[in-house]
């Protein structure tokens, strides 16, 4: 593998690791406060389109991001050997 290719893989690896960590912090960590409805607030929205709970949609979104990172890593980063 050439030096350029190694460097590209390293950058991709760092980017994927950062996106994965972001998805974890946003989905399961403090990022959830961005969408978490306050039970004491009478105007808070607990569901989005079609009555799907906001938290459910949020978790599903970040789960898809994590799975997408794994898929990209599978095709472009992880070695067979």
């Amino acid at each position, binding site marked *: 593998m050439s030096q350029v290719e190694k460097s590209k893989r390293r950058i991709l690896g760092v980017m994927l690791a950062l996106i*994965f960590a972001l*998805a*974890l*912090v946003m*989905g*399961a*960590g*403090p*990022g*959830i*406060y961005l969408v*978490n*409805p*306050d*039970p004491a607030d009478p105007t*808070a929205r*607990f*569901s989005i389109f*079609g*009555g*799907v*709970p*906001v*938290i*459910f949609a949020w*978790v*599903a979104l*970040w*789960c898809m991001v*994590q*799975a997408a*990172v*794994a*898929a990209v*890593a*599978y095709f472009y980063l*992880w*070695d*067979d*050997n």
Partner: protein
Amino acid sequence: MDFSILAQNSGPDLGKMPYIMFGAYLVLLMGIGGYGYIKSKMSEEDYYLAGRRQSFIVTVLTIMAAYFSSAGMLGFPGTAYKEGVAFFLMTLNLPVAGCAIYLLGSRIGRIGRVKGYVTPADMISDYYDNSSILRILVAFIGFLYGVPYLIIQIRAGGHIAEQIFSSTPTVMILGGQYSVFTVGTTILTLVMMLYVLVGGMRSVALADVVQGSLLLCGTLVAGGVTIYAFGGVGKYCEAVSKLPPKALSLPGITDRFSPWTMLTICLFASTASIIQPAQWMRLYAAKSARALKQSAVTFCAILPVCFLLGIMLVGLGARAMYPPTDTVDAVTGAVTSVTPHPVIGNFDQALVALLKNKGVEVLGTAGPFVVMLILMAILAAAMSTADASLHALSAVLTRDIYDRYIRPQAGEKERAWVGRIVIVIAALLALWLVQVGQNNQNFKPLQMITEMMFVAIAFSCQILPVTIDMLFIRKGTRAGAVCGMIAGLAVVFCFTPLPSLLLGRGLGSDIAGGAAYFKKLFDIGFCGFVVNLPVFVLVSLFTKKPNPDRVAEFKKIGKG
């Protein structure tokens, strides 16, 4: 988990379906055991690691089946029923575990293959200058993880048998009358013991292929039946949107799940579950890094779907259909206790009660078959985790204790037979403990062991710093690893009933109070890890480094 109330809700009669499906399931498992025996060779490597030739399909299904225990099929829907959507965050632990299968697993598998390792302690102790203390510590952690899991899964299997044969209260055998629980646990344990005994990892892995497929289908069918029971997706969402606000937000009904708790669980408990002995041995058993790579991405793609659209939907649906009673403190407004709906009976029964009461009703003639399929899936989840724990326990006690300290001169054949004897003793001992706990109201060892189940993963987490150091960093020392692991284990023991038992009400109660406080904030394994890691690093700075040749060898093999 408390399964004791499971049998109270018998639900509708499922006809002859239980006998046909349960019988077919047992015959299939025995057939797999026989096939594993025919294909096996009388070597230790073959018995414990199926000759290190497991394909991608077998690897991924056996990893998923061992990961998905009865806690996943019964406990998780129950927790979603109790706490609401806050528990859905648990799903995000799955892609972390999936990535760990490749990132840790490919190096573990490669080094294990070249060096001929069988247990986690083989690799860890060899890297750190063949340390006996480390070997014993890692074997001890394997024991602490494996024993509670084995007992709880057998017990869960007995209670699922009660559900499957709910119309048959007792069974007559040779003039004696026995409960379905007793007969069920005995048959399941004997069948599991036999197929693990005769075929080793080959039988366990093939049985897990069947059980893994069954439980993955079962979770999705359970989610589908729940939606159908409500009359479609729209009506399900409409019913769920009417749940109390606290059930639709964090930190949940009883304020149990803060984002920090969930974040540390997702990061540490998931990784710890992938390096527990049974999974570690599956990483050795995979035939190549490619098989692990494919397993990792499949795990990341499939299990979150089974969680989000399967068991979690059931838990939330059960809350909408059979709402529990939330007792609210008049002064603080906080929920002090949650009492399940009488139809549910017990939180862990949420999935079973919903499906048995609504599934048969809405699915018509297909109802008994579908409900039985889901009950069999729960049984498969319990059996697949139990067989993995039993098999790993045998390897740990034989390789790490018998071979090293009791009879170091034992040959490979002798060790394989000792491993089989360990399987018989461990299975029968676990069965005996389950029966004693069930029949004697004053003897409650299982209550303590159930609590231990929640800290079992935390014990496994204490191998994480040395695993990462050994595979990637290579700066730690034997003394650092030993001190870090002991410090981490000591912290995790504070979360068990042990301090109260040993130190009494004074100091013991203080420790228990502190542990309860931290348990609400973080994952238990993480609490041990944050003590383990600095001790490991500090001691490693001032102690003798491992043999540089071995470090270089590990680096070379690990990188491939």
